């Protein structure tokens, strides 16, 4: 494993005209690669893996911030291409306290509405971190419950 190796920059990521990501690494060009974070919630800046189209690991990046800024930008946008987990910042309103119900929320990706099918779709990662899955499979993250405003917490409390 590459944990102890220093990270020599000998790869590059780029998209072609079709919008497909390429990885060129030790002289080989891999088509259709994807980049994923190993710990998107607990350590988003550590452990990024670049996988081939078949799901084989091609490259492991220990730390994102150890990369040169430009390359890091490329890796980030490759991750962004696939990763979607909006963080709920604020609950504006809830149409009912009985599930299924719709929540109007503010996320770090903008305002939206989510449909909660049942209370069991709110899962606790630890005492302050929650994952809310909506009826369509999007997972919303509540990073710090205690840091939310009173109104949001009061609404959320009805479901916890």
């Amino acid at each position: 494993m590459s944990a102890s190796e220093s990270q020599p920059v000998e790869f590059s990521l780029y998209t072609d005209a079709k919008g497909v990501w390429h990885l060129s690494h030790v002289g080989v060009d891999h088509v259709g690669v994807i980049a994923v974070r190993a710990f998107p919630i607990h350590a988003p800046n550590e452990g990024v893996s670049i996988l081939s189209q078949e799901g084989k690991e091609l490259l492991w990046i220990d730390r994102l911030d150890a990369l040169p800024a430009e390359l890091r930008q490329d890796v980030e946008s490759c991750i962004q291409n696939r990763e979607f987990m909006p963080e709920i910042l604020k609950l504006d309103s809830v149409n009912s306290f009985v599930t299924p119900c719709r929540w109007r929320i503010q996320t770090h990706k903008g305002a939206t509405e989510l449909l909660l099918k049942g209370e069991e779709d709110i899962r606790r990662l630890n005492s302050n971190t929650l994952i809310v899955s909506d009826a369509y499979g999007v997972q919303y993250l509540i990073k710090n419950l205690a840091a939310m405003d009173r109104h949001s917490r009061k609404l959320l409390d009805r479901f916890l």
Partner: protein
Amino acid sequence: MTPGQRIVIPQGFESLVQAQLNTVENVLAVLEVDLDEQLCFSRGLLLATDQRLLSWERSPLSGEAQTPEGAASKWTCKIYPIDLGAKLSLHDHAGVAALELMGQDKRLAKWRFTLAQNLEANRLQMQWNQALGEHLKKIESNATSGSLEGLSQNCPTCGRLKLDFSNPCPVCEVKSDGHSPTEASATHNPLAIAESLDDDEAQASTWGLLRLWRFAKPYQNRLILGFVLTLASTAATLVPPYLTMPLMDEVLIPFQNGQQIESHVVAMYLLGLFGAALLAWALGWLKTYILALVSERIGADLRTAAYDHLMRLSLEYFGGRRTGDLMTRIGGETDRLCVFLSLHLLDFATDFLMIVMTAIILFSIDSGLALATLLPLPFIGWLIHVVRDRLRMGFEKIDRVWSELTNVLADTIPGIRVVKAFAQEGRESARFREANQHNLAVNDRINFLWSLFSPTVTLMTEIGLLVVWAFGIWQVSQHKVTVGVLTAFLAYIGRFYTRLDSMSRIVSHTQKAAAGTKRIFEILDHVSSVPEPVDPVNLTHVKGLVEIDNAVFRYGNRLIIKHLHLDIQPGEMIGLVGQSGSGKSTLVNLICRFYDVSEGSIKIDGVDIRRLPLAQYRSHIGLVLQEPFLFFGTIADNIAYGRSDATREEIIQAARAAHAHEFILRLPQGYDSLVGERGQGLSGGERQRISIARALLINPRILIMDEATSSVDTETEQEIQKALDNLVQGRTTIAIAHRLSTLQRADRLVVMEQGELIEQGNHEELMKAQGAYWRLYQAQARSDQANAMDVGLQASKRDVL
């Protein structure tokens, strides 16, 4: 034709769309997208006509406004004519879908949206690609094509487009499906639950409750405070009736006799009444709060203690008990005790104090009248007790019927797959209905008596009052007591006759609580059959030499392991072979010290395992089971289960070695994905590889694999086998497997039969000896061949046909 006749243009986009469309084109489908390129929430529209694809999105400069009802200039419209020959492709991951317009050799555009829009997206993609196909055909053959529009209809409930008329809207179905469990009304008589009694309560001595003192002791001071407050608040409630006496004699009666009412005296008494009520309110509040606080803490301590103790008990204890039973004991019984302490016992104490105090007050006022007042009391008490006894028997019956009902549920819900597979839903329903009917019948019978009960108590109270009235009037006529005294008496007894009923319940409540205490102390009193050593030997570094010397194990009266000798060298891999029931798993359980040997000994590096601290010893053992168990939590948590201090690097390293790394990365949240009950669904092979990573992470010297690969298919088995090869290296390994082929790398095969070791050696030696192993091997080879032949035969049959 007019665009948007059947297809609804989302609100706010109407004018934008109208402005762009010409009159000769047909709108095929509309898709409202809700994400932009950076995956931020932002509205946009995609519209397909038979001539072109139009897309509206906010221009980046347009600022914050969220509603599309801004000036039309804020929106940019992009147009992709059908002549481009570009196809739409749709794919999704982690709840986000992407629709891409792919030209000949480049991607022309990409739209992102959440899966909420997936239905429309599917439709749009289908319609567009179909239109494209026809367009291309038209160019080729110059033939005219018919209109494609017309299949759409809007769902009446949610206003979304749906694909065909017959089926319900899949979006709404999600909504209407979720029934809230709170809405379901309980058909069972609530009283029956409250009064339900346990079978073993008769034997449970009420004195068992005194054992709770161990848990109450830490809260001594608060308990004493609570008792003092109870005393004070009860006394406060007795003040108002006392004040009725002077109110009558000094104010009302003299007034009737022609004297003036002295307002300051009245004010004083009324103030006294108000003050007493206020005091009783404050004290009652405080006492209830403090005692509830204490009882909740006692219950919590009891629960924790019972659970802590349970965790330390040996597997033998769990083997003989049902999970549900243990769960009720720790959850339900402690809660019941808590309610008993905070509610019933408190009420009883208050009532008892009240009766004693009232009696004292009554006697101090007038002993003759007091005697007459209190005389009916024992009689009423006795009557109530008799009726209650009969009721209790009925409630016991209800309880038994109720458990019958729960049994049906407990049987069928976990086994629902079997029920459905054998199409026995009807039979199970009938079973439940029958049990429910029985429940109803028993309830009907008891309800007759129960409904009689409360009016009877009221009647008794009235009769008691009647006696006091009669005797009181006679006394007043004899000028022995004043009217005020009689009023005070009536006020007093009116209070406590009604309390007699609730007091009579204390017997059954106490018995129930005692039974609950007994059940909890049963757990607490149980001594683990695998005790911690009295003077433990510390073995920090283990080489991995295992010596089993003359081991005998009895389970009940069955002899499962018979005088077994086996030495395993450090780093050696042993394959345990034998028919089921030959004692392989038991031997492994003995090595793990889930059970202790009945005779003989098991030594590790020359030290008897019974002399090692349990937790330390087990930390040297890695166990991979047939059915890996994942706890609810993230994958990383599950891998680090045996070593919560493991770093992320170590977790990843273990996952790589277990060939789990890549499939974990493919999950939407990688190592942070939730698994276990209510979590992400994983296949058997994937779960197994996580459990292998778990075993790898603790880096055990001794590794035990109990049928680790038998529940997965051959292909997955090869993946797992690769993972296991990494795991086995340099460790003392004991592997059990049915399929002999999986044990090929074992240094030594040990054949067991009926608890005895009958053969050992490597594959070649054992084959040469033509003993038990040879027979097993032949049998498996034959059945494999037969299977292969079967498959071949079927194939050839098909060919012939």
